[in-house]
């Protein structure tokens, strides 16, 4: 067993670096270090928990500046007025308000990664594979940006400071809730698993359309177009099965299943033949175990699997 102080120092150094943002290769190195030994992982968890507790110290910000206190008390009203104006004025103004700041924090996962971020306010965000979240969580403001990927939000509701998640020009405002957001290059999906949210969509005329979404509702936005559907809780549970590290397929085409696997793995599944791309399958797979999937293709479906470098081609 390696010496605890040494591991502790390594874990602390990693955590500190991670807060400043890690490159993809650094992130991979961190994951490798964590997987290297359970002692590493536990030391990392322990320091992370303590360091997150220390986030509460932010409450002391400006505490000594009593002279500013009187001025400060007017601020919330001004902010509210400003907020109303922003809603009326629409997306153009929002862009200005939500510009990136150096104090924003970045959280990211590599391909195949899965990470839970706990904020000081009690909000939990779980990042799925290949995801980036930017966070501005201060005492007065709670804004998250889903820059790419997929995340599951469990929000500690605070009516005075609703949590806002931005995804491009789209905006989700929490009304006490758990929801899932997935952002692909041309498509945004918002699914509400509990409670309600407001879903704001930019219009062509730079106005905004606000849609209330409630439990079981799924909104799929492609640009300004939005379609709504209702899904069973079972289907929604399957949609967040990645939290357990598994993919659940029911009546899923081989092509869709392959696309799902490709989100979690560096090896790419390719199915060039449309005749087999639409074969439907069902099953539960570990997201990072492409082998189990190709075995099904070979043994159960009688297909041929060939490897070409990083590509795995499934054909007849």
């Amino acid at each position, binding site marked *: 067993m390696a010496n605890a102080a040494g591991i502790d120092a390594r874990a602390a150094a990693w955590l500190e670096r991670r807060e400043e943002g890690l490159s993809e290769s650094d992130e991979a190195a961190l994951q490798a270090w964590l997987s290297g030994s359970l002692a590493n992982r536990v030391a990392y968890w322990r320091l992370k928990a*303590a360091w997150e507790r220390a986030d509460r110290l932010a409450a002391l910000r400006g505490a000594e500046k009593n002279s500013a206190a009187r001025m400060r008390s007017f601020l919330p009203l001004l902010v509210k007025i400003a907020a109303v104006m922003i809603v009326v004025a629409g997306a153009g103004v929002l862009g200005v308000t939500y510009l990136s700041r150096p*104090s924003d924090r970045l959280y990211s996962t590599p391909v195949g990664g*899965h990470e839970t971020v706990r904020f000081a306010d009690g909000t939990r965000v779980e990042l799925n594979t290949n995801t980036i979240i930017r966070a501005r969580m201060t005492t007065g403001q709670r804004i998250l940006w889903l820059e790419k990927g997929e995340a599951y939000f469990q929000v500690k509701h605070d009516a005075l400071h609703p949590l806002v998640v931005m995804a491009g020009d789209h905006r989700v405002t929490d009304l006490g809730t758990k929801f899932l957001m997935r952002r692909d290059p041309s498509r945004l999906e918002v699914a509400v698993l509990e409670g309600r949210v407001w879903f704001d969509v930019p219009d062509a005329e730079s106005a905004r359309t606000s849609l209330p979404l409630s439990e079981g509702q799924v909104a799929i936005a492609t640009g300004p177009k939005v379609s709504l559907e209702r899904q069973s809780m079972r289907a929604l549970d399957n949609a967040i099965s990645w*939290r357990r590290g598994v993919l659940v397929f029911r009546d899923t085409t081989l092509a869709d299943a392959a696309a799902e696997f490709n989100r979690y793995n560096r090896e790419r599944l390719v199915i060039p033949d449309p005749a087999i791309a639409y074969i439907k399958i069902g099953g539960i797979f570990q997201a990072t175990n492409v082998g189990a999937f190709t075995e099904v293709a070979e043994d159960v479906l009688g297909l041929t699997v060939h490897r070409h470098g990083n590509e795995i081609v499934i054909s007849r």
Partner: protein
Amino acid sequence: MVEKTEQGRDGSTRPDAQMNASEVEAWFVREVLPLEAILMRYLRHNWRGQSDIEDLRQEIYVRVCEAAFRQLPDAAKPFVFTTARNLLITRARAGHVIPIEMVGDLDALGVAIDTPGPDRSAIAREELRRLQAALDRLPARARQAVILKKIDGLTRREIAARMGITEATVSEHLAAGMSALAGILYGEPADLGHKP
């Protein structure tokens, strides 16, 4: 159409890993870390070599989490302390160090184990007071770096500029502060009046 439910699960999951890392982490942070103060006291009382107490703590955490990856224990407290006792016995037998008084008395300890941990309902103000007290005990440079980071919300670069030191040195101070904070926040009783 082929229904091949459970194939992946049977064929791929390691037989001994039922829980995923974030579940174990959440359990560890929620159930085990709050026990650290009484665990450390237990170790100090029952182990002569004070220098390797932290190694013992680490080993106990690893064993506890190893088990948790298979299945989360129903009750964390008895599990952690049984693990601790077994480890001390094994170590004592291996002749590393002779324990002062090999307390087989988990029962006697039971009193201590059942002492309520930090009051979960009191939280915000009490927690803040505790954090401030912990902060006050950090080495001066580490404290300053942590204050600039956590209270003023500055980035590493801004802290370096403010303190007039390199970013690498800021990293070292922050890492040291992080380690020390964890030791104080988890390793010591919430009531600072009690000396460990």
